């Protein structure tokens, strides 16, 4: 049965996301928790030599909205520059999920996005890797 809120796309992303998993050598890692629901997201980003986001994986548990949002965000991020990722704001995340959410459920949708902000913050506090000067992995 198809529900107009839990659309096929959202269920697919939450139940069988190709972005669920771990990277071998992630450059940026962050964890997020929604204490109200107990939703958890672990986000890993791999950066290409030119600083663009090469690969994204997430892991976690929680409601369909939190998990689908993480998967859809991962899909959006791959191939984007760090600046583009930073410009992807709160409203863009809510628009990406594309269903009307009450304030309580918006927190579920925004969990992965908030986790991304943490990951990007950790990136800006360490020198970005460049092509000619290999930088150490910031997570060491």
């Amino acid at each position: 049965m198809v529900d107009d809120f839990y659309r096929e796309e959202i269920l697919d992303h939450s139940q069988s996301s190709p972005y669920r998993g771990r990277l071998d050598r992630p450059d940026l890692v962050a964890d997020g928790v929604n204490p109200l629901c107990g939703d958890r997201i672990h986000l890993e980003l791999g950066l290409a030599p030119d600083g663009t986001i090469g690969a994204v994986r997430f892991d976690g548990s929680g409601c369909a909205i939190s998990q689908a949002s993480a998967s859809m965000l991962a899909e959006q991020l791959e191939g984007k520059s760090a600046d583009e990722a930073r410009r992807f704001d709160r409203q863009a995340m809510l628009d990406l999920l594309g269903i009307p959410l009450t304030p309580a459920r918006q927190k579920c949708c925004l969990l992965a996005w908030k986790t991304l902000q943490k990951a990007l913050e950790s990136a800006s506090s360490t020198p970005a890797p460049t092509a000619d000067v290999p930088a150490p992995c910031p997570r060491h």
Partner: protein
Amino acid sequence: MSSSTAPIITSEVPAPFDPWSIRSRFPVLTREVRPGVPLVYLDNAATSLKPWSVIRAVQSYDTEFTANVHRGLHTLSEEATAAYEEARTSVARYIHARDESEIIFTRGTTESINLVALSFGRTRLQPGDEIVLTALEHHANLVPWLMLARERGVVLRYAELHPDGTLDLDSLDRQIGSRTRLVAFSGMSNVLGTLLPIAEIVARAQAVGAATLLDAAQLVAHGPLDVAALGVDFAAFSGHKMFGPTGIGILYGRRERLEAMPPVLGGGDMVLEVHRDRAEWNELPYKFEAGTPPIAQAIGLGAAVQFLAELDWDAITAHQQQLVASAQARLASISGVRLFSAPAYQNGGVVSFTVDGVHPHDLAQILDRRGVAIRAGQHCAMPLHETLGIPASARASFCLYNCQSEVESLAQAVEYACSVFHRSDSRSPNAARKSPADG
């Protein structure tokens, strides 16, 4: 209906309670959640709906006799004070307290229990003294004791549950000992619905000279409460779970206990005399009621108690058990549903459950769109969910105005949620518009 498993067989069968005889008294029950979607309210353990008598009582204070209590000599103040104290008398009579001095108005169950922890706990308990709780306590009857344990070195011990959600009295016997100073326990679980054997617990506490605190927040909406017969030292409950307003609650305490306890909050009304260097406390119960109380809400609680006092509780108890039994049976018939609730004959009206593959929050959202209001999460009982080994649960909680057709609405909405989440198509389960990059 699980009457075949009930241990008590009564010769007299009460006349069945018809919830429709009472539903018209609750205006919220007539609303639609959205146009064409009637409300099926199954979140009574969180808060109950209010009858017109309560609504009008609260309104009367604001429209007829707005004034502060215990202070003015003018007519309005006298009327407000009389209504406020009449509410206290109603509560005292309803729960069989000896008199009004044993009834303290608080903001709710949480504040009532905190009052006992901050006053009795801080002055009567020494490092190494033990407080015995049960594994099913609500955070309101847990966190105040954790705070006291941290502050005073008091030790907390927990009586465990049987697999069916009832209290293991053998475990309780192992926890209660010579160092036990207080046994604080819920009369009815807000997650499992379990009705606890209060008399047995009190007897065990009294055998070692320990005080008892009954968290009656859930219990009080599901049957009469007789603190004299139960013999508890303290009982705490909230107005809003017993068809009264929010922001008002009760701490019942045996007079001897309350007299020996210092006040917690200082201010107006709780003092007899104040000088620059000292103050003398007011008599009970005012010693524990500093500042202007929630007057309208107290008057509303008085009306709620009058509503409860007029009910035929034998018939309502049978009605509530029937709702629980049919909800348990109907939900158990749905593939993937796991039930977490006490057997109907020991259950005050709560059925918690999980559905494989559907997070409780998603379930609650789908049910809401069909007008069915339930709660999802941990229901302020994280340690109990850890014991059950589940991160969260969905909870349907019934009370006297719920009816059998609402059980069916619940079950059908759960079946619908299953059909949405358990898709049986053979399409490739990959919705991503593009392939992910390699790790």
